[in-house]
């Protein structure tokens, strides 16, 4: 009923103003999403008196962006279902490890990349299979996947007598040192993401399912299939991302990919995603969010914030963004 009064209020106001309100309401998400980026950017731009944009730093940022960006775009398809995934760190670790073995076995980069995608896709299909089959919350399934993948990697690391690393690192040059390739792949991924999410059946059905599975189903959406597809996409992207990840360090340890799952969630929120999925989810959340987070981490070191208060600053920025971007109007029940 609140809704009504709210609207009537709006209607009551002068046409121009209500038009404006309409407009802001309609585009709220869009420019507020950028506002978080703008906020962080300008803040550090000033604090670092411009160094943020130095050539060196720009390259740095792009390198760091690669993994998080690709992962977040990929997982956007999962999150827009209202599902949550916390297995990505483990999956990246496992994938990188197997890729390392493959490369050391003499396989070509191309083959290795395929293997990466296969492994990661495998993990994610298993995840959604468990969820669908046993009617589990996808997050619980991903919890199990996280435990298992992390466990396997740790076990291999702990039992192999020298560290697991790529012997011929020149093989990964494409992913490590070739900035043009990185940028191109990011652009391509972004485009693919945007197209799939906004201009294809997949994305549209995704959002519909996220909002109202029943209605989606009665409109001819195959709900299960749509979920599987979204996990498939996530799997592919994350497989690709793990190539970049591996190419950053050439080594795999029990800590590889640690904490990525959280980075993704934080990034999405910074990008203005409410994590509840549905038609409100925007692919730009993934793009803007991951950039914002990388900028944030980079900036905090650039300006040499005292280590004690780094996460304080982060937290406050995070809460500010949440407050201004995601704050919801009164509804009869508070969102879960």
């Amino acid at each position, binding site marked *: *009923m609140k*809704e*009504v009064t709210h*609207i009537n209020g709006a209607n009551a106001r002068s046409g121009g103003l209500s038009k404006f309100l*309409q407009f802001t309401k*309609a585009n709220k998400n869009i420019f507020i999403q950028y506002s978080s980026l703008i906020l962080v950017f300008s803040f550090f731009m000033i604090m670092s008196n411009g160094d943020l944009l130095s050539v060196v730093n720009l390259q740095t940022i792009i390198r760091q962006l690669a993994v998080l960006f690709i992962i977040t775009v990929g997982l956007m398809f999962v999150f827009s279902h209202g599902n949550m995934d916390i297995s990505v760190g483990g999956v990246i670790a496992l994938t990188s490890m197997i890729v390392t073995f493959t490369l050391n076995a003499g396989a070509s980069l191309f083959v290795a990349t395929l293997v990466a995608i296969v492994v990661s896709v495998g993990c994610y299909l298993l995840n959604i299979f468990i969820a669908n089959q046993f009617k589990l919350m996808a997050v619980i399934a991903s919890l199990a996947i996280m435990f298992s993948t992390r466990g396997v990697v740790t076990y291999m690391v702990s039992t192999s007598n020298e560290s697991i690393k790529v012997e011929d690192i020149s093989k990964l040059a494409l992913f490590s040192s070739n900035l043009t390739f990185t940028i191109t792949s990011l652009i391509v991924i972004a485009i693919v993401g945007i*197209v799939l999410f906004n*201009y*294809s*059946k997949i994305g*549209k*059905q995704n*959002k*519909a399912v996220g*909002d*109202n599975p*029943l*209605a*989606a*189903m*009665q*409109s*001819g*959406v*195959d709900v299960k299939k749509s979920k599987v597809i979204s996990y498939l996409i996530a799997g592919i992207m994350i497989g690709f991302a793990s190539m970049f990840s591996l190419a950053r360090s050439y080594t795999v340890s029990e800590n590889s990919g640690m904490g990525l799952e959280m980075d993704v969630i934080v990034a999405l929120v910074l990008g203005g995603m409410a994590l509840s999925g*549905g*038609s*409100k989810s925007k692919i730009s959340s993934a793009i803007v969010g991951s950039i914002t987070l990388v900028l944030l981490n980079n900036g905090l070191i650039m300006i040499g914030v005292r280590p004690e208060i780094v996460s304080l600053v982060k937290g406050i920025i995070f809460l500010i963004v949440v407050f201004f971007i995601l704050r919801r109007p009164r509804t009869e029940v508070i969102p879960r």
Partner: protein
Amino acid sequence: MDKEVFLETVNLTKKFDEVLAVDKVNMQVKLGEIKGLIGENGSGKSTISAMISGLHRITSGDIYINKKKYTPKNPLDAREKKISMIVQETGTINNLSIAENVFLGDEVRFKKNTFVNRKKMMVEAKKALEAVELDVDVTKSINTLNFEQRKLVEIARALYYNPTLFIVDETTTALSHEGRVLIHRIMRRLKSENKAVLFISHDLSELMEICDSLTVLRDGNFIRDFEKEQFDENEIKQEMVGRELEGDFYRSDYDGTSTGQVVFQAKNVSAQGLKNINLELHKGEILGIGGLSGSGMHELGKVMYGNIRLSAGEVLVYGHETPSFFQKLWKQKDKQNTGNMSPEAKPIRLTNIKTAIANKVGYVSKDRDQETLILEASVKDNLTLSALDKLDSYGLITQKAEKRFAQEQIDSLLIKCSSMNQTVRELSGGNKQKISFGKWIGNDSKILILDSPTRGVDVGVKTKMYQLLYDLKQQGYSILLISEELQELIGMSDRILLMKDGAITKEFHRSEKVDEKTLIQYMI
């Protein structure tokens, strides 16, 4: 007129968003009498009782109890005033125990020094259930009860507070014969105890049997009071429906003939709640399906749409095999006419929603907001969702195509929205309804299964809807019109099938002679 008035409404009015649900209603409920409230769907019966019992806030006007002003904020206020109501929809919460449901929201009554005395609660719950002759373990979860038993629990909840005003909203349709007899007995008992009862039902004969007086509503307006001695079925109906069937409301012609060509068919279909159904829908025909809720007509709609698995028989749609992906690629251009049922169309077994949609069968659910629309999504997204395949060209769905598609529907159906990006939740009932039509019409679904299409829309839109249905018929659409509103069926259908207990009991062809009275006999 010696009985004293317990409750009186003065210009009672309720608006939902912009929909005027109840409009300046003045009525009285007296002690020691059973007052019947009757009117078509959407005439405002539930809304009135909801306001009296504090479920909805009053928009304007007043309610007086014993001449004192009364403005309830929540059901507890009503309870204090000894008003209990049994709502039309389910009013119990799953996973809670039966006892907890009986005292939902009022557990404090058993509170003594901060702790709620559960034992007492159980005992009391048991007592409460005795009133409805329901003998179950009150500590068990409510889930263990069937629909009727849950209704009885609600009744028990209402009676527990030995109400002075007892409101029953269309509960009897949900009850078996025994259940009905029971609740009738309860109402009579209350009457004899000089309590007041407000009884809402679509079943006129039931009302006439039980009630001492009747109030007729139409489109949210108070129409007229009948005292027992004045009861006259036809007169009452006359008042309910109001106007003679004017041309601009329902269709005016009585030409029930349609092309012989069968486009949609159920053969010996049995499924949950359905027994051996046979029906044929012809091209350009409006086939009405009537019955009481619980007669299985809603299930029939889902069955025909491939949404409920059959236990026997088959549903056939006469169309073309779903084109393969490659065929689609070739067919990109001439998509528009693939929908038409060309003479050599062959029967296709309709087993799931996909084949239904592929063969241009569309379905609008009775529970529009839950099952057909995505309220959070925009008008555009809602309109396009079921037409994605059509819009999809080489794997891409361009904004342009979407916009064009959506705009077409908005224009042709005169959907009133600030923009095609407005979220559907904000639309008025009628506009929502138009959108759920538009989804399918836009997708050239030539066969439409419409379950209670005018449910919850105001009379203005109803007219538009009926006009629309008629136009669609003229354009060769075939429509399966499922409705609880007999007037609507009589007014719109070429043929009417009446259902009872999951079976088709009678078929009528369009003619002036068909009227509610004759129909009802085959439903009860």
